[in-house]
């Protein structure tokens, strides 16, 4: 299993002890990335959310009962299960920054990538996007809307990185040496508790790099070997245990 390495590796650290499950990240993402509202959203596994908040429970009765909320964007795997399976290279891990791309004009909509992704981070456009009540006037101009019949997913707000690089170039700075916070995703910006930290995992000065190296930081389904770029931080052992599958006699790693 080879992992592609880049000079810059954009990553995220999400503090599960800070997340209250408010869903502001989901709303911000939908607005930023032009996710069309679904007319009938009653079937929750047919609704488009590039970032979804899951509720975790320790399964114990009161007073030991405890919950945690886990926001799940695309994990931007270093060894992505989705990339090698795509028959038409509509998704790739081949650009500086290490963001897994999704080329929707090339996607044929076979959904093999969705079957491959254990994180359910990929979504299909089941119907034509409809923008009710003049909503199309509020679309983000830098993000293409997608037609029906293609797969899409979180891009770490890639357009924001493009904008930050453009700004640096205009100001005569090196676009590959952005200061921390110059480029962050919309969910990072929207989180009221500061539970999401975004930055370059390869830059030791970035907060995210420090958080990711903490002994409390784990990645989702690490033993599958996808080498993800999203870290989850918690000081609760039962929370960390739910980030991967463990046999009864196995201890949580770290």
């Amino acid at each position, binding site marked *: *299993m080879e992992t592609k390495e880049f000079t810059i590796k954009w990553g995220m650290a999400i503090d599960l002890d800070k997340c209250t499950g408010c869903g502001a990240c989901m709303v911000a993402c939908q607005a930023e990335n032009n996710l069309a509202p679904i007319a009938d959203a009653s*079937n929750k*596994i*047919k*609704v488009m959310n590039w970032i979804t908040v*899951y*509720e*975790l*429970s320790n399964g114990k009765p009161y007073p030991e009962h405890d919950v945690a909320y*886990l926001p799940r964007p695309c994990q931007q795997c270093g060894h992505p*299960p989705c990339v*090698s*399976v*795509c*028959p*038409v*290279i*509509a998704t790739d891990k081949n650009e500086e920054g290490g963001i897994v791309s999704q080329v929707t004009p*090339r*996607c*044929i*909509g*076979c*959904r*093999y990538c*969705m*079957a*491959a*992704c*254990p*994180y*359910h981070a*990929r*979504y*299909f*456009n*089941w*119907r*034509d996007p409809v923008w009710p009540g003049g909503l199309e006037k509020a679309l983000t101009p830098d993000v293409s809307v997608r*037609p*029906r*019949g*293609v*797969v899409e997913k979180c891009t770490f707000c890639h357009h924001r990185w493009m904008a930050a690089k453009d700004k640096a170039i205009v100001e005569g700075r090196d676009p590959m040496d952005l200061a921390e916070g110059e480029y962050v995703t919309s969910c990072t910006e929207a989180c009221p508790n500061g539970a999401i930290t975004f930055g370059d995992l390869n830059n030791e000065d970035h907060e995210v790099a420090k958080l990711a190296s903490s002994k409390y930081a784990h990645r*989702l*389904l690490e*033993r*599958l*070997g*996808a080498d993800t770029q999203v870290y989850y931080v918690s000081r609760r052992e039962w929370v960390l*245990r*739910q*980030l*991967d*599958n*463990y*046999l009864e006699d*196995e201890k949580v790693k770290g």
Partner: protein
Amino acid sequence: MGKNYSLPADHELFPEGTTRCSLTKFSVWMGLVGAVALWGLYAAFRVLAEGLGVTGLDDYFGFGLWITFDLAVIALGAGAFFTGLLRYILNIDPLKNIINLTVIIGFICYSGAMLILVLDVGQPIRAWFGYWHANVHSMLTEVIFCITCYLIVLIIEYIPLILEQKQLNRIPILHHLAHNLHVWMPLFAGIGAFLSTFHQGSLGGMYGVLFGRPYVLRDGFFIWPWTFFLFVISAVGSGPVFTVLIATLMEKMTGKKLVSWEIKTLMGKIAGAMLLVYLVFKFADTYAWVVDVLPRSGLTFDQNFYQTIYGKWLLWSELFLCGVVPCAILLTPKLRNNPALFYSAALLDCIGITINRYVFTVQALAMPVMPFDTWETYNPNWAEWGATALVLAYGAIVLSLSYRYLPIFPQERALNATKSS
């Protein structure tokens, strides 16, 4: 010249020396099948016009009934390439008596699978991207290559059958074309066997490589996971008896003997032998999955099953009731020669392979991999059943027309002459 009005109006088109039902009866049958096809066409129209939102598929079940159906018919349609291989390359001569039917069934299965894929793919107009932007690392790319190429081979194999139609065959150029295509048939049989082996395998490989899905993940040899080989062998272990079942169904419907019992049991014996090879590898594969793949993924055997819908009964049925049992019947001469047991074994064999394709397609997606996620269940809706019925109706139409007008059963005259004498 006087006309014989007791014969069907289209009797001049029938194969030499055969009888067929009246044109009215045939038209009623085609009308019934056509009604089913119309329902399916309506479903297909809705899917193409409104998108896949009209189906029961969702973001957990990107693959559902259609992919299961495709994988099943492609496996069961393997009778075409495998019988072709045995007949033309290994020279097992008696198989000439059923080879035409295997070709037609293969053609129906593959073209039907293509029809379904047109609906199942979100952007069918971009289907050619599979060639233009091919990702050589994807098993699905190989499937796209081989299935499209193999369908062309099947068409080439089907054409001489059409040209041998009594009236068409009187036209010298068509007669010579049919003859020459027959001369070249071993070449096409060889190409077909090559292409079919690879895409049957790649369909299995598609699942085995999914390292994010421990339910289907398998180790393997070089770039091929074990499922690559399992899918090939299981297809040849079931395709031949599927052809026999279709031939028998046609016999029941037409009231004629079309293929001799000896040929049917020969096909059964061949399928049984391949099924035995398959089962040896399947048991070894299941054992390796339980003791290696699952523990290293942090999962137990029980975690792979859920209630009745995705229960262990599916696995036990696939392995024993639809695996070991039909294999034993097909390989034991005494049991094989009992028609009731023989046909039951053939049916169980085909059901077992269908269960295998179903669980690899649907159960793999139903099972949560993230520990905090939940099992989801999938139920195809009317649009999916409708489109599937369309393909079945299409198959029935092609088969009915082929039976009525083309000389596909070399034994038909002899078998029915014996019956009447």
